[in-house]
């Protein structure tokens, strides 16, 4: 079962783009590129310093070079738009916000530990603000990274878009992508 060679998976924070991309990469041999690795300078704690756009694009260019297939996860709305013509398929993950928030909470807990994010902890405020921001995805307009902004972005894409909605197992998402590729072939 083949899947497209150049896939972009995006969605709200916590929608599972990285997980789905890694499953595709594991099964179909795609290189997995994650936007976070290009967007952020690696620091400890992470996600503090962003790379200038030209450096990000140059690194992405390097990572995409070569004949093999790749899958790119994360949101590139805006800064990554030069890549749009390359995508054979764009997958838009739409997951209910309570589910996303539960995942994000668990992820932050695993990443930083309970002490750092608890009230009084060094990362507490950032943690609270991040979840608050992630929770506004459905109601926000075009002034923030919102469902509205993603819908507007996806509506303007020239190529194929597959929308996968709901809190479904990753294997089911993968099966949908494979089934779609099977129909196209």
């Amino acid at each position, binding site marked *: 079962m083949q899947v497209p060679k150049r896939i972009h998976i995006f969605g709200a924070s916590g929608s599972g783009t990285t997980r789905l991309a890694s499953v595709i990469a594991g099964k179909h041999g795609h290189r997995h590129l994650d936007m976070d690795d290009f967007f952020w300078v690696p620091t400890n704690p992470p996600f503090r310093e962003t790379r200038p756009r030209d450096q990000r694009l140059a690194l992405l260019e390097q990572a995409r070079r070569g004949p093999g297939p790749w899958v790119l996860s994360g949101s590139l709305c805006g800064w990554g738009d030069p890549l749009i013509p390359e995508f054979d398929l764009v997958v838009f993950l739409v997951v209910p916000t309570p589910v996303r928030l539960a995942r994000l909470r668990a992820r932050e807990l695993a990443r930083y530990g309970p002490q750092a994010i608890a009230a009084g902890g060094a990362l507490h405020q950032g943690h609270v603000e991040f979840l608050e921001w992630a929770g506004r995805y459905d109601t926000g*307009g*075009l002034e*923030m990274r919102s469902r509205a*902004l993603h819908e*507007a972005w996806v509506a303007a894409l020239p190529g194929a878009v597959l929308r996968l909605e709901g809190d479904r197992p990753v294997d089911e998402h993968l099966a949908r992508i494979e089934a779609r590729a099977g129909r196209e072939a």
Partner: protein
Amino acid sequence: MPRRVFLVRHCEATGQDASSPLTAVGQTQATHLADYLETLGVDLLVSSPYIRARQSVAPLARQLGLPVEIDARLAERVLSAEPLADWREAIKQSFVDLDLAWPGGESSRAAMARGRAAIDGLLARPERAAVAVTHGNLLTLILHSFGTQGGFQIWERLTNPDVHCLVVHGERVEISHLGSNLRGDGR
């Protein structure tokens, strides 16, 4: 996608002169502003000629690799050539009587007209999402020109920085207030 203009009041500054730079806190605010705005598809940057405005957009310009165009029409409204005894009261009055002008100063109506012309100029261009950095009084007047009521109260509540987003749906312009609580994907 509808066209957007992010109307930004500059970050915290050391003074009111055209040449006053940002404070250290203001510099940090400018980087947070950049982190927030750069993932929203911004493709045009315009600033008031004042240093505090230019410094507020500088980190965003660096991260996006875009030039900053300077538009003198986004400079702060000049209330009076001479210092006023009670300038807050003067600003309050200026929102009641838009034609009120002090010696050497600009009326609210005149300032509003040039500020609005600058924004209309942006909307006439092919770029899809602009950032326009300006100042508190002028920003409030620009909002007023789009129908936002409550000039003086709006002005009083502005923060540094302060962001409003204008979204253009045909003839209708929708305005949302982001304030200074700018949280991006940064964690």
